[in-house]
Every structure is written in structure tokens, then in C-alpha cells.
């Protein structure tokens, strides 16, 4: 299986992205079964790879049979397979929500089987793009898949109609600028080394003596990827995009989209470019920007009244947290960053599915509208509560453990940067306490006042469920995962860390 799974993992989503729209165009019947089957198959491939890498070590895979640096290589270690599992897993939930969920009544009443097929195709394309980024070992190939995922994401965002189209357009401008900056940086690297393969780059860069050119390259690449990763202050596209997207899309992109870019940043800055002087400086800057992002995101989240917007700002804070980990660069910090990616992806996916669904069931998007929901839908709201507690970092949820790792790393890092990171992480928890407990208080301890309530306004109508079942299933499942990830933190860390430790060892060995 080891020699088949890598190919399947990147091929299946693209296959599906064409197959599902084709079926929709030809048969005019619903395409839900093939789409879900494909997502399940992709997840199975990702899990298989994860297990295989855990059991027998990393996998290098030469696409087309051409070994690197001439051909394009894929590289699967604990890090990439973990992110792949995360992407594929949350994609399954998103597909579930998209298939059965409120995508239809939310976006366009005139939804046809063809349109649904197209949207399913776009989701598969998005998954394919993200998995491509995760898998690739080639900096140009990374750009191509970055653009695939971006275009698919613009499509999915814009399918919300109205304001969502504007948000998608702004996202498109930011994303394209990001892509071009990145590509320009890759051009510099290519001019300096003549190669595009990450391993080859890492080997050849230390002997490059053009410091200014290398700095420009590193900065261009870092800025480009930081825009996609919504690193403060390059986060401008994020809030509207998350808020106006249709719920299944919002849940998916809020969970994994920016994180995959952060992963790419980690790969490039932490592994490939870390041997350069500019790389080290940029990593430092990343750390400080991460600190700023954590604080600014948290404060702005407190200032929001709309829940989805609050969640979006909280994402900016969380991305800052991840980049703090990337910036610190120690094995412990990377573990924390990764763990935070996983914890935040699960929790934020859960929250966006939930908040979007509740918004769509006409209860509004502000805290007032959520008053007393706990009594009406205890299970779903309990799940959302678990996710919120994970965002705050209450044990034993996953968010607690990621914060623990990051705090440990910031203490071992020491110095002003370490102290700033430490303080920022603590502060972000406190801010998260403020903005999430406000919601939880309304949910559990307050009774609905004049909040718009669809089920109460006319006696004859069927009561509208707080959260439609197709969204409740992902919400509850993700909350369970948040808890399990927390409790089984240690095996997870043992699993992912070893090959990263060798990676960082190489970095420190090569550092001047």
C-alpha cells in the first residue's frame, strides 16, 4: 500500500472534482453518493498514509517516476500526513454538511442537481489543492496547488451570493497578490540555485553568497504565504470571507484553509530556508507578528457582536498563535504549533458549522439570539461548548494542551521574544474567556427575550430545529474529537515529533 497511497491521495480529489460535475451534467440526478464516497476514500488514503508513516517511516514519492530534483517529489512524514488527515477528515464533515445541510436553502432556492454537483466538485478541488500543498516537495508545484485551492475556495465562498461575492472578490485579490509574491520569491530562489526541489534547495542554499537577493526571496515567500495564512497584519481578507461564506464552506475553510498555508510557511521557513541568515530574521519577525496577531485578534473578537465575525477574529488570533510556534522554531514549539493547528481546526470547524447553522435557522447571529438555546438543544450546544472551551484552553480539551506546549516552548526560548510570546498566549486565553463565556452564559443561563425565534412566531408552523441534523452530526463528532485529541495528546506528539526532531537537528546543524 505504501507505494500506491501517495498517488491515490493526490489523484482521487482531482478525479472526483471532474467526475462529480460530469455526472451532474450528464445524469441530472443527485451526486451525493459518489461525492461522499470519494471523500471517504480520500480520508481512508490519508489515514492509511498516516499509519504507514507511523509504522515504517517517511515516504518519498517521485511522481511520474522522475526522481527529484528533476521531477516533482511528494514527501510524507508525520507532519504532512497529520495535516492531510485533518484536511481530509474535516472535508468529510463539510461534504456531509454540504450534501444534507442547509447549503440549499441558504444560498439559492433555484439550486439544481447540476449546481450541487458543481459545488461538490469545487469542494473536492479545494481538498485536492490543499492535499497537494501538503504533499509536495517542490516549491513551484506548491504554487500550482495553492492556486487550485484558492480558486476552488473563491468559488465556494462566492456561492453564498450577495455580500459573499464581494468577500470572495477581495479574497481573490489578496490571494492572487499572495500567490504572485510567493512565485516571485521562488523565481529568486531559482535564479540563485537553479532548483525547485525543497531538499535540493536546502542543500544548495547555504553555499549561496548573495545575501541581499536571498533576503528578498525569503521576504517575498514569507509575505506571500503569510497573506494566505492570515498573519496579522495581512489578515484583511479573512473576516468577511468567513462570515459571508455558506456554512459548509465556512466550516471547512475556517478549519483548515489558512492552516495549510501556515504549514507551507513552516516547511519553507522552518526547514528549507532556516539555514539562511535571512530565514532566521524572518522567523523572528514572524514570531513578533504572531504575538501582535494574537493580541489584536483577541481584542477585536471581544469587540464583535456577531458571533460568526467574532469567530473569524478569533481565527486571526489563533493563526497568530500557530505562527508564534513556527517562529520560535524549537521542536517543542513546532509540536505546539502543529497541535494548535489540529486543536483549532477541530474546534473552529465545529463552531462554524454550529454558528452558521444556527444563523441559518433564523435565530440571528448575535449573542441575544442564542439566549436559552442550551435548554432547547442540549446536545449540540454542549458540543459547541466543548469547542469553545478548547478555544479558551480549558483542560482536558485539545486547546489546553496546545497552549501548554506553546507556553513551554516560549519559556525555553526565553528572552524578550519568549516573554512576549508567553504573555500573548496567556492574554489570548483571557480574551477568549471574555468572548466565549459571554456566549456560553447566554446559551445556558439566560432565557430568550425578544430574540427572533422562528419556532415561536407562529403557532401553526413546525418548530424549526436549533441546528439542522446534518450540521449537528459534524458538530457533535468534531467536539468528541476535540476531547479525544486532548486526552490522547501524548501518543500524538510522540507520533509526529520524531521525524521533525531530525528535521530541526538538520536546521541547527546548518545554521551559521
Amino acid at each position, binding site marked *: 500500500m505504501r507505494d500506491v497511497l501517495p498517488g491515490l491521495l493526490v489523484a482521487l480529489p482531482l478525479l472526483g472534482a471532474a467526475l462529480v460535475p460530469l455526472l451532474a451534467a450528464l445524469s441530472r440526478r443527485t451526486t451525493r453518493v459518489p461525492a461522499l464516497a470519494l471523500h471517504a476514500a480520500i480520508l481512508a488514503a490519508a489515514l492509511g498514509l498516516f499509519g504507514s508513516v507511523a509504522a515504517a517511516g517517511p515516504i518519498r514519492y517521485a511522481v511520474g517516476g522522475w526522481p527529484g530534483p528533476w521531477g516533482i517529489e511528494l514527501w510524507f512524514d508525520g507532519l504532512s500526513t497529520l495535516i492531510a488527515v485533518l484536511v481530509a477528515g474535516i472535508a468529510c464533515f463539510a461534504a456531509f454538511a454540504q450534501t444534507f445541510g442547509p447549503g440549499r436553502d441558504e444560498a439559492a432556492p433555484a439550486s439544481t442537481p447540476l449546481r450541487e454537483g458543481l459545488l461538490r466538485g469545487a469542494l473536492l478541488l479545494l481538498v485536492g489543492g490543499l492535499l497537494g500543498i501538503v504533499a509536495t516537495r517542490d516549491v513551484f508545484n506548491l504554487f*500550482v496547488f495553492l492556486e487550485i485551492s484558492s*480558486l476552488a475556495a473563491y468559488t465556494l465562498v462566492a456561492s453564498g451570493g450577495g455580500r459573499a461575492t464581494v468577500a470572495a*472578490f477581495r479574497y*481573490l485579490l489578496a490571494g*492572487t497578490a499572495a500567490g504572485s509574491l510567493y512565485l516571485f520569491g521562488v523565481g529568486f530562489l531559482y535564479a540563485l540555485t537553479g532548483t525547485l526541489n525543497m531538499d535540493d534547495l536546502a542543500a544548495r542554499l547555504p553555499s549561496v553568497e548573495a545575501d541581499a537577493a536571498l533576503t528578498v526571496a525569503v521576504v517575498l515567500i514569507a509575505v506571500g504565504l503569510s497573506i494566505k495564512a492570515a498573519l496579522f497584519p495581512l489578515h484583511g481578507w479573512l473576516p468577511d470571507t468567513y462570515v459571508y461564506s455558506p456554512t459548509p464552506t465556512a466550516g471547512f475553510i475556517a478549519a483548515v484553509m489558512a492552516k495549510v498555508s501556515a504549514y507551507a510557511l513552516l516547511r519553507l521557513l522552518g526547514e528549507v530556508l532556516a539555514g539562511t541568515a535571512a530565514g532566521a530574521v524572518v522567523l523572528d519577525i514572524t514570531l513578533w507578528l504572531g504575538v501582535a496577531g494574537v493580541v489584536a485578534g483577541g481584542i477585536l473578537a471581544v469587540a464583535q457582536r456577531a458571533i460568526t465575525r467574532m469567530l473569524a477574529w478569533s481565527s486571526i488570533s489563533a493563526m497568530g498563535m500557530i505562527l508564534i510556534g513556527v517562529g520560535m522554531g524549537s521542536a517543542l514549539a513546532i509540536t505546539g504549533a502543529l497541535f494548535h493547528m489540529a486543536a483549532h481546526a477541530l474546534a473552529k470547524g465545529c463552531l462554524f458549522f454550529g454558528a452558521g447553522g444556527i444563523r441559518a435557522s433564523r435565530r440571528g447571529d448575535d449573542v441575544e439570539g442564542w439566549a436559552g438555546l442550551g435548554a432547547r438543544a442540549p446536545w449540540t450546544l454542549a458540543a459547541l461548548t466543548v469547542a469553545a472551551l478548547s478555544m479558551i484552553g480549558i483542560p482536558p480539551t485539545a486547546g489546553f494542551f496546545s497552549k501548554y506546549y506553546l507556553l513551554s516552548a516560549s519559556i525555553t526560548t526565553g528572552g524578550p521574544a519568549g516573554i512576549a510570546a508567553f504573555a500573548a498566549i496567556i492574554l489570548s486565553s483571557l480574551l477568549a474567556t471574555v468572548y466565549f463565556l459571554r456566549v456560553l452564559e447566554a446559551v445556558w443561563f439566560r432565557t430568550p427575550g425578544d430574540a427572533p425565534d422562528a419556532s415561536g412566531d407562529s403557532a401553526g408552523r413546525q418548530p424549526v430545529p436549533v441546528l439542522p441534523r446534518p450540521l449537528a452530526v459534524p458538530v457533535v463528532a468534531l467536539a468528541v474529537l476535540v476531547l479525544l485529541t486532548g486526552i490522547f495528546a501524548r501518543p500524538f506528539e510522540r507520533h509526529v515529533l520524531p521525524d521533525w526532531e531530525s528535521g530541526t537537528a538538520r536546521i541547527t546543524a546548518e545554521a551559521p
Partner: protein
Amino acid sequence: MTIYAFAAALFTLGIAGMALLPNLLRKLLAMNVMQVAVIVFFVSLAFKDGATVPILGQGGAPRAAEFMNPLPHTLMLTAIVVSVSTTGLALGLLVRIRSRFRTLNEQRLLDRLR
């Protein structure tokens, strides 16, 4: 070097236009200019003095010095496709935005969204 600087100039022109122009369609034109700048940069990296187009003619075994570097050309074919794809999708979005909000002026659009 001078050649590269033109790529830098085009890139700056494009990205500045994206940020500063008030009309979304013009932003899109600027975006295209920016993308072309990157392509110009890459293609200039492929150029070798005294070499010819990277297509094998008649004759003996090819030597590396005789032909332009084909790799950047290949990459830029892909980049051009990316560029046109993005533009196409963006134009689709613009048509939609225009029909919904009656303007493509950024400031007016934001006013209408408020």
C-alpha cells in the same frame, strides 16, 4: 540586471494598481500586469547568450549551452494559465457584483454594503 528591473517595475506597477485604483475592474487589469511581471522575470532567467529556442532541430546530440533553459518556460506556461483562470473567475465575480450592487467602485460598493 536592467532586464530584471523592468520586471520589478511592472510588478510594482501592478501591485500598486491593485491597491490604489478605485475601480474593481481596473484592479483586475493591474493584477494581470503584476502576474505578467512575474512571468517576464522567470523567462528572463531562462535566457542564455548564444543559445536558441529549446526545440531540437536536425543534427547531432544536443548540448546544454546551445538551447535556452526550458524549465522556466514550462513553469510560465502554467503561470499564464493560472493568471487567465484567476482573471476569468474574477470577471465572473465582477459581473455578479455589478448586477447585485450596481457599481464596481470600491468605495461606493463598501458604502452600499454598510
